[in-house]
């Protein structure tokens, strides 16, 4: 299991760079994870990250696109503008949550 230093904090990740232990996450770690994706976090990004955080705490799964649209009130177009090439995967990683499982 790789360990790396992000924003001065050692964090454990899986092979794809998702945090294994969310207690190692904080807002600076999020910014560092975002930087790895070439993203500078703005209020728009935080609206998405905060929704994923709240929803994960409620349901223990990373919300899918439709849930972000319908429950989070965040249109797909905005998500692609904020997190290009795979918004859910990127936003999940920056939020410190596991890679979303695509259903069978």
């Amino acid at each position: 299991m790789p360990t790396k230093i992000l924003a001065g904090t050692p964090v454990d990740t899986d092979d794809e760079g998702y945090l294994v232990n969310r207690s190692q996450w904080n807002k600076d770690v999020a910014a560092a994870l975002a930087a790895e994706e070439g993203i500078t976090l703005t209020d728009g990004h935080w609206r998405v990250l905060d929704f994923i955080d709240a929803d994960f705490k409620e349901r223990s799964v990373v919300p899918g696109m439709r849930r972000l649209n319908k429950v989070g009130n965040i249109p797909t177009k905005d998500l692609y503008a904020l997190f290009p090439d795979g918004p859910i995967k990127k936003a999940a990683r920056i939020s410190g949550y596991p890679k979303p499982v695509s259903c069978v």
Partner: protein
Amino acid sequence: MKTLLILGAGTAGTIMASTLRNKLPKGEWTIALVDRAPDHYYQPGYLFMPFGIYTENDVRRPMTRTVPRGIDYREADVDRVDAAANRVFLPDGTEIPYDVLIIATGVHPAPEQVEGMVNGDWRKNVHEFYTFEGAKALTERLKSWQGGRLVVHICEMPIKCPVAPLEFTFLADAWLQEKGLREKTEIVYVTPMSGAFTKPVASGILTRLLDEKRISVVHDFAIARVDAEKKAIVSWDEKEVPYDLLVTVPPNMGAEMIDRSGLGDELNYVPTDKHTLQCKAHANIFVIGDATDCPTSKAGSVAHFEAEVLTENILHFIAGQPLRSRFDGHANCFIESGHGKAFLLDFNYDQEPVTGTFPLPALGPMRLLAESRLNHLGKMAFRWVYWNILLPGWPIPLVGHKMSLRGKNIPPKELKAAA
């Protein structure tokens, strides 16, 4: 008299009606079944219609022949479930009170969820094969196919029978060869997933097969709209895939009745305990088949395995006992690969599809995750099994609801993890 009410007379609802009618005393329990369709469809057969392998009559039977005896059957739509009052309302205002409710209303393709999909080109150059009408229209379209760019496409996951789009692609490849049109046809497979299938071992094998058959794959494609004028599908990040014929799998939504009843999630799937199949919100409501949000395939085999578990759990529930039977996510899927051959997958919540033999270790006779003629014959024989064994609620010999690890070649790393 008490009432057990089943909504939906598809695969799951019909099996439940059959098995419970044999288990619940007739003098104590009425079993009511409601469905809006006059006919029952063998849905796995839709895949074969466009290639002339099955006709309309192979896949359709009137409900009068599939609804079991001793069932109070009504052909009607459902307006909503009032779960607090233990009642179901029909659109004409009829109320059906229930003691136990089983929701088996399935999923349906919802092309209107994608901008521009239902437009002037719908059922002309933009098709789906997950409905009887869709399979019929596509059959007609293929009759006049002269070559060009055939795009097989999945809008988003989850979908019913997630291997069907691959099967369609393989069957199209074989059919085009027979018609002498393969050299004139470019086949493109477009998926929102990162590979051909969700599970790594199967995905690797199926990707190689696509490659061998000269089918190009566009992965991680999240559709934003269909541009009918350009004849292209366009992704949210503005990638375009042009088509002459688009065969798409639209988003799969649960019944609108679920939404009207306030029982569903954002896709109108009912949040369900994945082991007991009890509705999370109401103890006397149970959910089976495609209507659940369980993280396994939406497939007839799953509905069949779930039915064994649910029958036991409903008997436990009625007797006031804990729900002891547990569903493991078992799915068993044939994948037609063309030219009279097929693959077989057997998996559950925890075990991804791997190679091996089925149902018996070493003896098989069927081979898992490998192409064989016997697998294909198994798939073809299944239509008879469906009408004559599955729907009447008889068990299938050697294949139980609990997935067996015997005969499976499980990578040592995973076995260790499982232990």
